């Protein structure tokens, strides 16, 4: 019999195991879950960006049909504030300002959307009806909606005890060395830019169900989270004061996160706490408009930079001053984003000898700002790659040549940057070469001329980037202010017949872990993919975990699995040695078969698994039965994916509409487990990057009202806004994790925005454009064209 076993291990584009349930409508997202006796919560939210609450009258609302209970901040005196997970220190060594973030507003509201009261009712509609009937009197205070307004002298204070609205004033790098380098520069490029504020908009709105069993005093929270164990820790220990063994957090199928579902949100605490009070399950599901005003937003930086160069175009020094918007309260990881996830990347792919960065984080009367796909690294990349293009233009250098001349050479790894990180591997010339070839860079001028003949302005842009994933190691991040460890946990549970269940502390909300993680097991243990299931998202099942963000799942979570599999194989070999009456040193294992080296004596995986659980003939004195191992893996370093993105656009001068006509991504994500999934991740990330560059704009008015508060005004990328995205990889292996993987979830969103804007600026070069802020909308581009050549206006 000729049995053909398809290759399902590392490197195979196997179809996803999770797809069948999603395609059949059998996914179980949080709002799909219904608990017996369930009630519904509606949250009354502040219509004002900044106001003092003078009174709340719930009497009329409480008498409305179906109302079970109404809670305000005054009902929660014993609850803690929503904590921030990372403490930053100021330049002078003092800790950052860390004002209280109450679950429901107490005294003041600080952004439009701030939670004021929670109504629990029999139906969703009744809860909403009653929330409307709550009478709140506000004394409206002046709002600060922008960085500029918040920092103005005499500005209204978001938190009465935070002077000047400054959360922290931090720096990194050696200022003295930096200034000395500037003093020797032949040329200094000065540049200012904005990184536009974005709304993450995962397609599944956030939802949470609190459940409480009065007989055991056990609480369960079902929530749309990327990291259920982190939520259990933050909410249990800091907010509700519940011990871990009495609090189970389940993050079932989650419909996209992009960072916005990392954080612990007030609604999670509200439904959990309220379930205990009303002794019934409480469900809350955000409407999209509610998502816009409560999900943490992303980006929102204003930056000034200076780049010192020598006469040959070599970078001598970089000085960066950034203002970062924190919003009204500190979200879970907000403080780390513009510091350790941004400023540490300001060396980029370049061997700039000195980098000095200063970051001031500022409170405003807006939704909290935190990590959104890329988190800090897109901001660093956008700054660097725009700055390098400007430097090229202003020194008359070729855009490719200036990059090549300044790249960290492939033989310089490990490379210590002047801003703390040590890159382990990479080959920026190689990814650049491959991308230039794939994008047809050399033939571009012909395409530009052809477009011009059709009345279109064509431009091409390039971005070469490096980022940092799998944030680590715990000891280092702890010394930098992280209040948690950043290891990951994996359990390999081999069942008696040899099939495997993997328990992972990471969480999949689109990434396909149920497939790629199973592929790791198939590759190492030889168990067919169909016999490997991956379980995640439930603190009652998974020993522990830190969740999924920062492209860490495979690099950290996958490595934990490898360590657990090492233990499994070591033990299985001892069982096999016993059965084959050989010494354990002589037993070899290769994908499902144990063999005494140099002989034809073998035992199958299934035989060893069965023996582990039916230990009749077993070295019971020296070995426990069972085959179930857990490993915690704490990485030795970040991983450093990098690459080159090239974008080609065409602009219709008459309307200003920009069309992305070609997009080429060549990324070094380390070893690729499933090429199909990697390509999908990059395509999706690039779509978000193009969205940021051309379409998406989160706008507050001066009163702090969110103007772009629905899909009617916030432009989500649609199918017709995007091109096919050509994706390729060029691999250098990560040197410090057992899989050699780096991470692929964020590269698309990090590398692409500057490639797009560089292309737009290139297309508009005849208009003398130095820079165009994101999003480069049609109206904005037409404005530039119209201002330069009024005669064209009506053509």
């Amino acid at each position, binding site marked *: 019999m000729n049995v053909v076993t398809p290759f399902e291990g590392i490197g195979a584009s196997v179809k996803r195991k999770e797809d069948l349930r999603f395609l059949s409508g059998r996914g179980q997202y949080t709002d799909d879950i219904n608990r017996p006796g369930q009630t519904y919560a509606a949250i009354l939210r502040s219509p004002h960006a900044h106001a003092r609450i003078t009174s709340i009258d719930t009497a009329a609302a409480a008498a409305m049909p179906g109302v079970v209970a109404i809670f305000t901040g005054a009902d929660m005196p014993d609850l803690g504030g929503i904590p921030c997970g990372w403490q930053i220190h100021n330049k002078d060594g003092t800790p950052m300002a860390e004002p209280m973030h109450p679950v429901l507003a107490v005294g003041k509201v600080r952004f439009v959307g701030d939670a004021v009261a929670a109504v629990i009712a029999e139906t969703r*509609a009744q809860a909403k009806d009653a929330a*409307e009937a709550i009478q709140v009197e506000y004394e409206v205070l002046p709002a600060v909606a922008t960085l500029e307004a918040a920092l103005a002298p005499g500005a209204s204070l978001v938190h009465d005890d935070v002077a000047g609205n400054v959360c922290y004033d931090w720096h990194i790098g050696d200022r003295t060395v930096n200034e000395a380098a500037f003093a020797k520069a032949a040329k200094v490029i000065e540049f200012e830019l904005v990184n536009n504020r974005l709304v993450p908009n995962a397609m599944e709105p956030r939802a949470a169900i609190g459940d409480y069993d009065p007989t055991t005093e056990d609480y369960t929270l079902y929530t749309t989270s990327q990291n259920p164990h982190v939520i259990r820790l933050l909410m249990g220990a800091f907010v509700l004061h519940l011990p871990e063994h009495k609090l189970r957090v389940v993050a079932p199928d989650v419909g996209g996160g992009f960072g916005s579902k990392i954080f612990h949100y007030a609604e999670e605490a509200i439904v959990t706490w309220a379930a205990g009070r009303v002794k019934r399950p409480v469900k809350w599901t955000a409407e999209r408009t509610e998502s816009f005003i409560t999900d943490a937003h992303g980006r929102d930086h204003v930056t000034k930079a200076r780049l010192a160069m020598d006469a040959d175009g070599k970078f001598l020094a970089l000085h960066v001053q950034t203002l970062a918007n924190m919003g009204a309260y500190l979200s879970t990881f907000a403080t780390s984003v513009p510091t350790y996830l941004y400023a540490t990347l300001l060396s980029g792919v370049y061997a700039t000898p000195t980098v000095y960065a200063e970051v001031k984080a500022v409170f405003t009367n807006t939704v909290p700002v935190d990590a959104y796909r890329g988190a800090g690294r897109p901001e660093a990349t956008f700054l660097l790659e725009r700055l390098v293009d400007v430097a090229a233009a202003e020194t008359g250098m070729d855009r490719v040549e200036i990059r090549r001349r300044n790249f960290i050479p492939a033989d310089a790894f490990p490379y210590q940057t002047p801003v703390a990180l040590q890159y382990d591997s990479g080959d920026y010339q190689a990814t650049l070469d491959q991308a230039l070839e794939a994008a047809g860079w050399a033939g571009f001028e012909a395409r530009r001329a052809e477009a011009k003949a059709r009345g279109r302005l064509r431009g091409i842009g390039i971005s070469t980037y490096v980022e940092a994933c799998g944030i680590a190691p715990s000891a280092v991040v702890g010394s930098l202010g992280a209040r948690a460890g950043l290891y990951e946990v994996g359990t390999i549970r081999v069942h008696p017949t040899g099939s495997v269940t993997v328990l992972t502390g990471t969480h999949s909300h689109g990434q396909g872990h149920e497939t790629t993680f199973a592929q790791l097991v198939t590759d190492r243990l030889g168990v067919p993919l169909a016999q490997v299931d991956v379980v995640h998202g439930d603190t009652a099942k998974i020993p522990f975990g830190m969740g999924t963000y920062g492209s860490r799942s495979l690099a950290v979570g996958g490595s934990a699995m490898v360590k657990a599999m090492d233990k499994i194989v070591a033990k299985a070999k001892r069982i096999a040695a016993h059965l084959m009456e050989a010494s354990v040193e002589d037993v070899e294992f290769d994908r499902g078969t144990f063999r005494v080296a140099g002989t034809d004596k073998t035992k199958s995986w299934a035989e060893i698994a069965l023996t582990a659980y039916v230990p009749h003939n077993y070295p019971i004195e020296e070995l426990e039965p069972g085959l179930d191992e857990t490993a915690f893996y704490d990485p030795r370093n970040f991983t450093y994916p990098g690459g080159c993105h090239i974008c080609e656009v065409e602009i219709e001068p008459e309307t200003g509409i920009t069309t992305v006509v070609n997009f080429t991504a060549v990324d070094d994500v380390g070893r690729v487990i499933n090429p199909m999934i990697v390509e999908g991740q990059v395509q999706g990330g690039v779509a978000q990057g193009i969205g940021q560059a051309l379409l998406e704009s989160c706008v507050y008015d001066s009163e702090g009202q969110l*103007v772009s508060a629905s899909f009617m005004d916030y432009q989500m990328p649609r199918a017709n806004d995007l091109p096919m995205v050509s994706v390729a990889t060029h691999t250098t292996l990560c040197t410090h994790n057992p899989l050699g993987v780096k991470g692929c979830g964020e590269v698309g969103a990090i590398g692409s925005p500057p490639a797009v804007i560089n292309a737009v600026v290139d297309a508009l070069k005849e208009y003398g454009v130095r820079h165009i802020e994101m999003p480069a909308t049609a109206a904005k581009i037409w404005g530039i064209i119209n201002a330069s050549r009024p005669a064209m206006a009506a053509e």
Partner: protein
Amino acid sequence: MYDFEYHKPGSLADAVKLLSADPDARPISGGQTLLPALKHRLNKPTSVVDLSGIAELRGIKREGNKLVIGALAKHVEVATSPEVKAAIPALAQMAGTIGDTQVRNRGTIGGSVANNDPAADYPSAVLGLNATIVTDKRRIAADDFFQGMFTTALEPGELLVAIEFPIPEKAGYAKMRNPASRYVMAGAFVAKTGGAVRVAINGAGPGVFRQTEMEKALTANWSPDAVAGVKQDADGLNSDIHGSAEYRAHLVTVMAKRAVANAG
């Protein structure tokens, strides 16, 4: 959404009776505008009167030199109707670009015209083609019907029954969509009917309006170049995060030019 009573009358007379009896009753046909508004609690009707069971409001037919389209005709029906495609292809083309597939499968011409959203498509066709609005009580000329943002000549309880479009010699439409909502940011419907030229502009201002300078220019010379030089005054046009009044004014000229080109 606030709760309401739901009625589904079987005749025009019954519908009018229900709507006349209760000033807070609202008619619904496709519901593609009304339901999103109700979901946001922008409206609190006591009852909703579903017109979809009323046969008198249906049908698309050619009557001599007119095309008569019943109020309940869905956008998809207008877009694919052989009668419309043959008589006024620009109208079919317009209908095929309203909203998205699902909106076109539910939304109706009567609902759109009666709502008179400044960023809707149909009002510019009605005005540009000098159509007549037929209600349960009277006939209203397009010039009299549209009275600014979300306002029409319809009286409370009065129902739009059909729209009669004179068949033009030439007609064309072009629009630029709002990048987020996909409603119209600036659109132009141009038509030459019985020798008379009309240019109706939607999206750009607080309501659909006629661009008389362009009408004059096209009367003199029916060509894209004739309108290319006519500037729209930005005063009074909409200005928002998606584009300034100046940008919209510019787009009016661009879209008018394209509309003429589309008309052939």
